[in-house]
């Protein structure tokens, strides 16, 4: 398992003093139907964008809390990985975006009958957010509202 001790010293020192945002009252939505009848959405925080999309803004202090919509029928080879962190090896997700955004795996699960269908759009965030206030207040609720509008039942979230 990865550990905070895996990071370089400056990052370790930052994380040692960092106040993680604790979810005090944990919200809970039980599944109401079998997965084989569910619509699924993916959310990745690996900073993937489509070639024509505006990149995440690395200059925003505390991190860019915005998100990009990624069509679920996208060719994963066309995704551009833009995660700003230098604290991990980007080689794996550049070689195979499915490693942090398992778009092709979802299609395979639909074909096998394990899940009902994929949502028409997935969401891509840049996870390197040290000040998550705006994420909690604005962009995460906005992202959730989009998926509610789409009648999404379940979501798989993948960090990097």
């Amino acid at each position, binding site marked *: 398992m990865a550990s905070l001790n895996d990071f370089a010293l400056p990052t370790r020192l930052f994380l040692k003093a960092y106040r993680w945002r604790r979810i005090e009252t944990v919200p809970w*939505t039980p599944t109401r139907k079998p997965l084989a009848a569910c619509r699924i959405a993916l*959310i990745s925080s690996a900073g993937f964008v489509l070639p024509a999309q505006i990149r995440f803004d690395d200059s925003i202090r505390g991190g860019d809390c915005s998100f990009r919509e990624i069509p679920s029928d996208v060719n994963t080879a066309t995704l551009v990985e833009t995660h700003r962190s230098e604290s991990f090896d980007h080689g794996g997700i550049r070689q195979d975006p499915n490693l942090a955004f398992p778009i092709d795996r979802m299609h395979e699960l639909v074909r096998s009958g394990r899940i009902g269908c994929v949502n028409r759009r997935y969401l891509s965030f840049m996870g390197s957010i040290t000040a998550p206030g705006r994420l909690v207040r604005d962009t995460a609720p906005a992202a959730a509202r989009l998926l509610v509008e789409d009648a999404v*039942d379940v979501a798989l979230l993948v960090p990097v």
Partner: protein
Amino acid sequence: MCNQAVSLIAAELERQGISTVAIQLLREVAERVRPPRALCVPFRHGYPLGSPNNATEQHAVIDAALRLIEDTNGTPPVLVDYVEH
């Protein structure tokens, strides 16, 4: 920070009625942030589903995550370690 970000997003989805499961690479962060449902994986940073171009391994991790959603006996927050087979 990615682990915290997806946890906070997952919580908002759950508030709005969508069941979620989040992959987590850092158990110590997941324990502090407390996403509703999380699968802690034994992989290094940058490799949340195991290995690139290994669909079998990626499917195994995804299936373990989906089983947390199917388990109706869980009490939030659910935090389970992925066991490689």
